């Protein structure tokens, strides 16, 4: 073999390919027990939201006035409420509202926030200064209180909830994305793009965005936890969907008075359901954050 046959730099130095890298992230995640626990809980609730009839034992709307306020038993695992409806089935069916509204609201907030963050971080200067002040003003608004006002004005509906929560989350996400963009912006590939006359939108969305996806993913999962909480809170306050639809927050508020009468099961299981989703989402987002940002 002559020297000329040897490539200048052979494949020896090549590292694992990109699919391998993605698999590596997944492998890292799966290695974390907390991620597994969180995912299993979320998967369970997603199945409940999609196919509640598979798990629920009874019709959640079926009243049985002869059988009201029954404690948990083999027939009614979580007992019955003041109208004699099966609490277990109501908890299972209740997953749908939250698991539809919260992720959509978070998605909306993430998309808006990422776009805003990219613009602020990339353009900087006066655009950034002005937008940043608006963002800060928005940050001062408490999510639940502001939502209450908007929902009072527009009337409660799933769409209103999604839009309000999404818009209120956007500035929070924008701030994180902006910080990540500022770092990326100083890298030379951005200068190289300017030198070949790329327009700002191309640089922001094609050059920079793929490189800030890690913080965006982390923000999404973190915000999802908050969104679930916000939806549950608004429902509790009566600003979500209206009865008789089963909804964890709503149930807790409706049945709250029954606790004083000793019928604790009418509140406890809904509360536990809310807690389990929020905790599960946080377990997942913690793991994602650790793995992506290590």
């Amino acid at each position, binding site marked *: 073999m002559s020297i000329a046959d040897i490539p200048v730099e052979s494949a020896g130095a090549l590292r694992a390919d990109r699919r391998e*890298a993605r698999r590596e992230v997944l492998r890292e995640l799966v290695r974390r027990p907390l991620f597994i626990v969180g995912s299993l809980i979320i998967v369970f609730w997603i199945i409940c939201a999609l196919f509640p009839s598979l798990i629920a034992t009874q019709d959640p709307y079926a009243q049985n006035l002869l059988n009201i306020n029954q404690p948990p038993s083999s027939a009614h695992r979580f007992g019955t409420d003041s109208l004699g409806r099966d609490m277990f089935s109501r908890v299972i069916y209740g997953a749908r509202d939250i698991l539809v509204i919260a992720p959509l609201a978070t998605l909306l907030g993430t998309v808006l926030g990422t776009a805003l963050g990219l613009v602020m971080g990339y353009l900087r200067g006066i655009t950034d200064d002005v937008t940043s002040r608006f963002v800060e003003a928005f940050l001062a608004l408490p999510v639940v209180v502001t939502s209450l006002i908007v929902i009072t004005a527009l009337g409660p509906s799933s769409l209103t909830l999604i839009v309000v929560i999404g818009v209120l989350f956007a500035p929070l996400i924008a701030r994180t994305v902006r910080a990540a963009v500022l770092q990326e912006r100083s890298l030379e590939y951005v200068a190289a793009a300017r*030198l070949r006359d790329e327009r700002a939108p191309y640089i922001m969305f094609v*050059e920079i965005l793929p490189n800030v996806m890690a913080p965006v993913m982390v923000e999404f999962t973190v915000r999802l936890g908050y969104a679930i909480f916000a939806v549950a809170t608004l429902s509790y306050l009566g600003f979500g969907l209206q009865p008789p639809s089963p909804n964890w927050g709503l149930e807790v508020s409706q049945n709250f008075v029954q606790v004083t009468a000793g019928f604790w099961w009418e509140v406890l299981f809904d509360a536990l359901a809310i807690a389990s989703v929020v905790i599960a989402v946080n377990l997942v987002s913690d793991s994602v954050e650790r793995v992506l940002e290590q």
Partner: protein
Amino acid sequence: MSTAAAPAPPAGEPGAPGDALSVQNVDVAYTVRGKRRGVLHDVSFRVARGESYGLVGESGCGKSTMALAVVRYLARNGSVTKGGITVDGRDVLAMSGAELRKLRANTVAMVYQEPGRALNPSIRVGRQVAERFEVSGMARAQAVDRSLEMLQKVRIADPASVMNRYPHQLSGGMLQRVVIAIALAAQPSLLILDEPTTALDATVEAEVLDLIVALREELSTSLLFISHNLGVVSRMCDRVGVLYAGELVEEGPAQAVFHDPRHPYTVGLLRCIPRRDTLKARRALDTIPGSLPEPGASPAGCIFADRCGLAEHRCRVEAPPLYTAGSHHRSRCHLHERAQLLPRATPAEAASTAERTGSDGTLIRATSVSKTFRVAGQAIHGLTDVSFELRSGETLGLVGESGSGKTTLARVLLGLTAPDPGAQITLAGAALPESADKRTRDQRKAVQIVFQNPDSALNRRHSVRRLISRSLSRLGGYRGQALLERLSTLIKEVRLSDRHLDMRPVQLSGGLKQRVAIARAFAGDPQVVVCDEPTSALDVSVQAAILNLLTDLQRREQVSYVFISHDLGVVRYLADRIAVLYLGRLMEVGSAERVFSGPHHPYTEALLSAVPTLDQADRERIRLEGEIPSAAHPPSGCVFHTRCPRRLGPICDEIEPPLAEREPGHTIRCHIPIEELSSLQLGPQDAGVAPARG
């Protein structure tokens, strides 16, 4: 100011009792995802008392792993799987935790590459030095006194005030002195230096190396000196071991290894380095073909056989033992007697480069370019009144220490940084707008850049195909089939292959990444390519290949380069003309030959003298005292007067000398008449070299 001391005589026979360090047949492996990967294989060497031993090799050869193994400080997944290590006659591998701590506290000290990371940023420097004494049971007050003494010993001018400062308030060179002071505090019998000056500027590096030489004599400490820089090692070490892919392939006295190498790898490595007599016009640099084998690979024969132009059948089937190749000189090569007959991997013929076709017209003319940055209300003078011209087809080397404004000047040329008002830059006679956004497409594609760090310059989410095609379509205006064809010829020109196209930067080695960046710069048929330290992050063998590629492309495309580098060897090899920057001012501009051979500006003189090279005869070294002044408050008069070894007197402090043409095509900013510079500089040194001109 100190002259380098002659190295201590070579240490005694290997095996002499009482070695400071003895490494016998050591294997080190890292366990990665359940698989064990060997990184060092059967490495043996000794460092005698008072001796300075150098380990050289390219990145990934296992140098740092060796250093860590000596103090049992390997990462958790690494372990010494075979062999023995003794320090001061004591078996390191058998030590308990407490003994190990004692060893690290009293017997062995280490200094790493990044001094800033070796110190705690939130504790005052004095406390951190004193702590080192308190560890060995000294009282607080006494420890402070000893710290002062120690800082004085490492030539820190005002130790009392330095002790009160935080690490971030000190320059890199000062920090490295502090780290050395801490390392030497316990009077260790072995000092391990892992690339101690790699992060420092050449002039600072020279000072730190002087200091190490002086302290070593004073304290009779043994050194294990690890570096990729053969020049530094040849200056610092009595004996040298060459590591390749985890094996010690050659060992011997520094003089013998560097001037009479007996292993083809060493031979190849030495040929990759641009020497004083190699110029691009005369010959291409040689390279080492192929790349390092994967860690853990254990071929039946010689580990270097795949990249060796001499390899015979025997080399591939029979692993060579360490042959004796001279007195104390050993080589792990069956053909050690013929090692220097290694055929060139790259043809030498490059002579036609010199013949530039076309006119020698001025391509870029920059007039009074200044750039003032405003940081926290303070004016930082990045560039002050820089004027120069770049001719078509030439390479202008831009040299200077960090902070001298090299990169700022490059960014101004590219239109990425707007100069202060009053600057004027023309390209082929037409005014070049300040901002890249305002330039026409032709102007933009005419001036392109190869950045220093390809990791930052290439979007890590884009494939090679996308990275290059995008430039071809935006700058070259190629579409469809034409684009595909041009892409395919362009990647061939930079010696990439089709299979690289679908890879992302992370999958490529440093050299390949830089080739992608070069392809991108050439996508729009540029007239000027700014190369901002394009090889400083690469190993010498890869650097040689990239420099050859740049030369080749220049000859073919008739492009001009502005070549920025702190490595004067590289600049000397590549540049036709050289501009020397100091504190944002041009100190000297002239043809490469004149700037290097002198008479030159005292600053250029100091820069040249600071670089440890392999072929440097022992000549008087000029050292710069002190730090580079802050660009916020540049010194009055000649900005260099605070450090100038040839300062005349008050005139230098008060009046800024003009950048005047002292010889045809050679301008110098200095009050000293050229005849005097000439006699000062050609006097004691280079005695054998005939004066270039009268």
